[in-house]
């Protein structure tokens, strides 16, 4: 067992790492959410080149490993003369990656709304923007929520990858501890529990959002 005074060193460090993990989660969560809408709308654009280019970018990002993307941002980019701080690289890498997945969520949810809804909007002489804002998006958003909940949990787990190359998130902190105090089993179990707590909080948040946006459902 880990003794009490070892815990007194481990827990503060774990908390410190957890703060970094949470920061990454919130910042990248918001950024990838924005990217999802930019990407999703681009893929549905009436302008063909916009559709093609966005499709290509999204498929490229989805089709390559996050880990390799992160390494590329940290190690390859400087060789090309662009130096970005590891923390920033982590944020860019995670946001692009999960934004690409999110784009598909946005696109497919908007396309899932029956054509009759758009047609009713046209028959009521609403403009395309009005139809999107009052008819399509509110319904599509409800469909998006569970998938976005999943995506946020994936993002949380994705943040662990950045410890390998970049920042001092909670995984990285625990790895340090293993080197100094040993007790691998307990430390890693503690880490699992810490991820679970954050992940479950995300799940509860999204369940609450789903309830909030469920008007009209029976």
């Amino acid at each position, binding site marked *: 067992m880990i003794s009490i005074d070892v815990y007194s060193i481990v827990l503060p460090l774990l908390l410190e790492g957890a703060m970094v993990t949470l920061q990454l989660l919130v910042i990248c969560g918001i950024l990838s959410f924005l990217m999802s809408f930019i990407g999703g709308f681009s893929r549905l654009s009436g302008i063909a080149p916009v559709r093609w280019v966005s499709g290509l970018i999204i498929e490229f990002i989805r089709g390559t490993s996050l880990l390799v993307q992160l390494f590329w941002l940290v190690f390859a980019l400087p060789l090309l003369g662009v130096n970005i701080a590891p923390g920033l690289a982590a944020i860019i890498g995670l946001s692009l990656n999960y934004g690409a997945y999110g784009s598909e969520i946005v696109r497919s949810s908007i396309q899932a709304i029956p054509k009759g809804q758009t*047609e*009713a909007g046209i*028959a009521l002489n609403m403009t395309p923007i009005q139809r999107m804002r009052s008819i399509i998006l509110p319904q599509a958003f409800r469909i998006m929520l569970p998938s976005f909940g999943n995506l946020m949990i994936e993002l949380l787990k994705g943040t662990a990858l950045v410890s390998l190359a970049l920042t001092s998130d909670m995984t990285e902190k625990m790895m340090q501890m293993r080197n100094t105090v040993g007790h691998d089993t307990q430390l890693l179990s503690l880490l699992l529990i810490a991820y679970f707590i954050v992940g479950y909080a995300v799940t509860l948040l999204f369940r609450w959002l789903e309830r909030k946006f469920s008007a*009209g459902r029976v």
Partner: protein
Amino acid sequence: MVETQDANALTAYNIQDKDPIVKYREIKKAFGDTEVLKGIDFDLYPGERVAIIGPSGSGKTTMARLLMTLEKPTSGTIEVDGRYLWHKEVKGQLVPADEKHLHEVRGDIGMVFQHFNLFPHMTILKNCTEAPVKALGLSKKEAEERAKEMLDKVGMLEKAKDYPASLSGGQQQRVAIARALVMRPKVMLFDEPTSALDPETVGEVLQVIKDIAKQGDMAMMLITHEMSFAHEVADRICFFDEGIIQEQGPPSQVFTQPKTERLQEFLKRFHMNGSS
């Protein structure tokens, strides 16, 4: 005017010296290689009620959707209240209309769909006020007053705070009718408004449409398979088959003395034998 005299013979409605509110001219519509409408010439007069009948797949829905701007004609023109719908006049030339032009012209048209197409995430009242506020620019208060008046007319005012999913099909369709009426269109299209309903709620919706037809001076185009309803409500019956108007005239004539063999055959299916 010779044209008006001809038109008068086709309808039980008193056209007087009115100009048509809607004019289809040589309208053709193809989906890929299939030509669905093969040259439609059709006039609808302000306040006139025309029932469109005809077999499945004959192009009735397509004809209405072209007027609602849900589908674009392959060739030909449609005029609404003296303005081209799918074209703009630029220096005397007809050029394809843009969204802005469509927006201006289609304000005169309203449509009730077979499957209601209510907005499921909005209350009944909101369903009826959203477009008046957004598209007509009414204040929320004005829109709600209008909406309540129309919901009352279709007998759905009590349900104003409910969501569509909690209503029966017939009730949803009555709300959809109110929602379209709130916009005060000059022409209202009904595309088989009762075909998706349980038999027991068909009557209430037909009754609402009959009531609307009695009041007001809105022109109506009713696509329906309910022959007795068409007979009762319409000033003119328009028989569609194979993408063209095969025969039209006042109900008394069309139902009792159909001229074409196709129409005779068609009416037999509804036990309406032309000669009897």
